[in-house]
């Protein structure tokens, strides 16, 4: 082992680095630009996840936009309410009472429930499978199951279960919308965390065809519409859905008679 050349290498590189560092430090002193100190404070209060939910290229850009008054506080769906309030106080902005939204996967077509139509050997992403006649599962509306949503989640809040269905961790989910955009089937939607009753199906085929491909498909039989008096259930395009502005029971499903058990309670009671 040639230790002199090692020492020379380390010393010369270190020396060059040191010289440049000194030059840069000097230049930094001379060329320093006074930035609004508020920007740094606001950036510290923002989540720092750079998830892009605000539509700006990262939290620092969002902080600049907030300080310059270009956007209001509702822009960041991710930050804690207390942090937003602090930013509001700092900038004299009004805090907007935003209900926390979480992603809901509107599909129960896991590997046992939904029929398989083919073997898929292609690229194992949902987007790739979409181009190749939609992957293995027979349902043309439901989850494809290759986890594009899992891959894009910056908060580690969505995972695949054994059935090959994504499960949202409602505590970790911040409602940043990334998974909603990533899903080629539009199976994932954002809903306020206080909404618990959902029709977990996205199949818009007629009841018979939907039932043929999936055990838990909504067949648009309207039993739920008739059973619920508040008018919170509606059927559109062969698919029942819950209108949470009308539906009066927070943690209760209107009928046990749903023939395919497509109506499901999601999440825990009293979540915030």
């Amino acid at each position, binding site marked *: 082992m040639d230790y002199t050349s090692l020492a020379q290498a380390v010393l010369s590189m270190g020396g*060059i680095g040191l010289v*440049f560092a000194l030059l840069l430090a000097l*230049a930094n002193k001379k060329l320093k*630009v006074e930035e609004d100190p508020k920007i740094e404070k606001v950036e510290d209060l923002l989540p720092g996840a750079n998830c892009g939910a605000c539509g700006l290229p990262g939290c620092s850009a969002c902080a600049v936009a907030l300080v310059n008054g270009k956007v209001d506080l509702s822009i960041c769906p991710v930050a804690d309410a207390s942090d937003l309030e602090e930013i509001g106080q700092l900038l004299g902005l009004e805090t907007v009472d935003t209900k926390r939204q979480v992603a809901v996967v509107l599909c129960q077509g896991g590997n046992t429930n939904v029929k398989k139509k083919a073997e898929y050997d292609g690229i194992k992403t949902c987007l790739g499978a979409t181009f190749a006649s939609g992957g293995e599962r027979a349902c043309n509306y439901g989850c494809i199951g290759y986890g594009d949503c899992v891959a894009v989640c910056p908060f580690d809040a969505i995972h695949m279960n054994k059935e090959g269905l994504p499960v949202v961790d409602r505590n970790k989910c911040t409602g940043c919308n990334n998974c909603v955009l990533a899903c080629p089937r539009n199976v994932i939607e954002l809903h306020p965390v206080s909404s618990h009753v959902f029709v977990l199906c996205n199949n818009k085929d007629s009841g018979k065809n939907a039932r043929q491909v999936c055990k838990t498909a909504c067949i648009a039989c309207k039993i739920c519409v008739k059973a619920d008096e508040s008018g919170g259930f509606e059927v559109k395009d062969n698919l029942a859905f819950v209108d949470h502005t009308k539906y009066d029971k927070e943690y209760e499903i209107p009928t046990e008679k749903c023939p395919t058990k497509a109506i499901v309670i999601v999440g825990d009671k009293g979540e915030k």
Partner: protein
Amino acid sequence: MTIFTIFISAAIINNYVLVQFLGICPFVGVSKKLSSSFSMGLATTFVMTMAAAVTWLIYYFILVPFNLQFLQIVSFILVIASLVQLVEMFIKKMSKPLYDALGIFLPLITTNCAIMGVALFLVMKEYSFIESIIFGFSAGVGFTLAIVLMAGIREELEIADVPEYFKGAPITMIVAGCMALAFMGFAGLI
């Protein structure tokens, strides 16, 4: 090699962007507006010229005497990164709008392969100090030429009747290809 031939060769015949296909990233990224693309060209030219000078000094006065040529890429990256930092501070101080217009592509000059290319080529071609500076400068001029031409064309394209699916990146790629073809015509000039 005379200074003139080095200039013509680096700026036009072996144009870094359109013939050697180095530095494509800012070439496509910052060529939307003529003014900001020209500033990008100037910034890159400055970094290239300075990098050529400093890397030459480092190579022949530090790396060669100690037999450390294997460290050339590491040390060149160090030089380029520091220079880019300097340019960034300078532009931020001098013109905030320009700083905002260049955006992420300004720090990305660090990873601009055209600059690394200049540093590696001047060692490979065994240029003298003066020749190296000329080489770096003319490579920068070539880069500026390419990016300004591209920006001019893209500004015209904004009002042109481009088919829906060719708008944006696709038509830019096609234009870049056509320009590269045109620059091939210079091959063999010297």
